């Protein structure tokens, strides 16, 4: 055998030097340098989610219509689960893989400050600021700048099964308060109509924070102090909300499987008729009333979120379309976004997701799609509560999710869980 004399020492030295050569690459501007206006024509790529709001079929249909109207632009949409959306946007940012990205209301602070999405304040027509609903406008706004255009305006509503409530003799008007919901659940449970009247999305995920936010708001709590400098969820309404959640578990009113459920699980369990009441996004009204995917179709009604001592704010669960920082075809991306977010397109697909435009709620065609849903939305969307608008929100959310579950599973007292969460989250503000 011929022996290949590899200079072992030289190789080792090269390996040792490697980190140094790698270090040389770190230098520059901490922002995408490849983005560009583009010609306004050609191919663009867009990243959407495959969950609540507009369905994949809706978005593909909208895109087909768009391409018919703008034949010089072709759009290639990609769909991922909500749980993967954030990380996909981050991972794809340096390469500029997507021209258009759908972002959640909790991300503008993070994505805007890191230039993962572009600042579109200059292109944002003044009329939109008055024509769009306040809650929608906040979706893509951070520190006075706009980083995208609101597209999905959503909050969590109270859905109930009319048949079960009827059998238990519960008057639906009593569901306007959380106390009323508890009383109704207790009545349903004692009548043995369902084992656990309530189902929630309390899995260790953002879904848990959405439910918690809505309850925190109802009990008059706050996430952070008004100057965003200190934690406020560990006392007052924040603590009361968690204690209330735990009590519904201890009393056997909440399905214990809530702790492993996301919104889709809530929808399925509710659609099976295994729960009498549930909190969920707008899309459940349509889905749970669809005989093809629900056993309780025609027996589902919706109400604005119930109130407690602090009122009845809904959680702001809106989403916006943004031009990504690395896009090389930002002009065409903006054309596509302007089309998808237009009142015309949003009104057409109101059945899946309610429009962001104020006028749409008086448009007979929109109202007729789901009169009860629109009525509930009109009331709830008037007062929304936001999750903290800080760049390190995701980390705070992770900590809070884990500690809330500690309390819900009875591993920690609610006071201790929230105090522990506050201690960990303090340094992230």
């Amino acid at each position: 055998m011929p022996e290949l004399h590899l200079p072992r020492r030289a190789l080792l030295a090269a390996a040792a030097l490697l980190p140094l050569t790698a270090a040389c690459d770190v230098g520059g501007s901490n922002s995408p340098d490849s983005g560009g206006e583009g010609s306004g024509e050609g191919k663009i790529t867009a990243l959407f989610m495959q969950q609540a709001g507009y369905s994949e079929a809706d978005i593909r249909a909208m895109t087909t219509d768009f391409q018919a109207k703008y034949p010089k632009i072709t759009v290639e949409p990609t769909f991922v689960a909500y749980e993967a959306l954030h990380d996909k946007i981050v991972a794809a940012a340096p390469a500029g893989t997507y021209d258009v990205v759908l972002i959640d209301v909790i991300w503008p602070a993070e994505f805007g400050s890191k230039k993962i999405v572009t600042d579109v304040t200059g292109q944002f027509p003044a009329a939109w600021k008055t024509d769009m609903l306040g809650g929608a406008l906040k979706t893509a706004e951070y520190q006075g700048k706009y980083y995208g255009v609101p597209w999905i305006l959503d909050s969590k509503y109270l859905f109930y099964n009319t048949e079960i409530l009827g059998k238990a003799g519960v008057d639906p008007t009593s569901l306007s308060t959380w106390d009323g919901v508890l009383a109704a659940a207790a009545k349903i449970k004692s009548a043995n109509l369902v084992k656990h009247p309530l189902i929630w999305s309390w899995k260790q995920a953002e879904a848990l924070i959405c439910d918690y936010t809505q309850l925190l708001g109802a009990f008059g709590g706050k996430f952070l102090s008004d100057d965003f400098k200190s934690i406020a969820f560990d006392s007052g309404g924040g603590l009361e909300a968690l204690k209330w959640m735990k009590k519904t578990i201890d009393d056997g009113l909440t399905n214990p499987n809530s702790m492993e459920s996301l919104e889709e699980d809530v929808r399925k369990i509710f659609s099976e008729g295994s729960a009498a009441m549930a909190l969920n996004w707008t899309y459940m009204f349509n889905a749970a009333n669809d005989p093809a995917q629900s056993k309780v179709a025609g027996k589902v009604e919706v109400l604005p979120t119930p109130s407690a001592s602090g009122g009845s704010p809904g959680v702001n669960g809106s989403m916006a379309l943004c031009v990504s920082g690395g896009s090389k075809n930002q002009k065409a991306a903006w054309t596509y976004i302007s089309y998808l977010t237009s009142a015309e397109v949003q009104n057409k697909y109101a059945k899946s997701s309610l429009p962001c435009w104020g006028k749409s709620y008086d448009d007979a065609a929109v109202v007729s799609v789901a009169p009860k849903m629109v009525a509930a939305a009109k009331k709830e969307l008037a007062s929304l509560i936001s999750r903290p608008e800080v760049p390190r929100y995701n980390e705070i959310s992770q900590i809070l999710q884990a500690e809330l579950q500690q309390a819900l599973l009875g591993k920690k007292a609610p006071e201790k869980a929230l105090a522990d969460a506050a201690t960990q989250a303090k340094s992230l503000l």
Partner: protein
Amino acid sequence: MRKQAPLAAALLLPAALVVFGVVLWPAGRALVISFLDVDSPFPGAYPFVGLGNYADILTNPRFWAAAQHTLYFTVASTTLEVVLGLGLAHLLAAPMRFRWLFRAIVILPWALPTIVNGAMWRWILNAEYGALNALLTQLHLMDDYHSWLGADPFLALNMVVVADVWKNTSLVAFFLLAGLSAIPAELGEAARIDGAGSFRVFWRITLPLLRPTLAAVLVLRVIEAFKVFDIVYVMTGGGPASGTQTITFLTYLQAFSAQRFSYGAALAYLTVVAVLLLALIYLRLLRQQEMRAL
């Protein structure tokens, strides 16, 4: 003979480039990043923090909780896999009809992608309509449906172990089957003639001769189990109450969800150090086997 060296070098070059490009370069980059404070996906100038990220990690209770889960998962799953794999290997080695069919069936779980296996077990264990709940209640072993993945963090971790064991036992079994086939049957026969029972034959002859294979497969599985990520991602998402969060899952959360790339890189390097130690043990074992074979 010397003339062949340039040709050899040329032939090796593509492989060397690939190794450099996809292994050494990223590994070097990650090491550098772990000493900086990178908080954005874009290239740029980031502050140097030295061992700050490592210090942060080692003083963070979340890391130690994740380390505990990882260690438990590794020990529990590999132990079960080896014990069950050993039994399975014996069954597959036994003379019987359609042995090829049984062998093919046993390899199936291992052939499934981990993501598919995780999704399958998530459905089996589903609290509302899972097959396990249906089976246990129909057999009257349980009165009521039970939440396997949401009620108790430790139970959920054990369920992840079960899913992993179901998939990887077959790999261990096949390794050990190869080891068993290499043991001359005469040794067992001789021992039996001398009056040894089955158990004694297993304990005194099979097991000692199987030891090198056993050690190799054990180290291999420990390394794999230590890096567990995908099955956790699919089955539990790290919950409930972070009870199934392993080190690699925490790495992912910190690096991508929180955009603390440096912290994530440092976490990854801690995993690398642990895996490297295990790999060294593995290589040493392999060398010992080669020596014995000579």
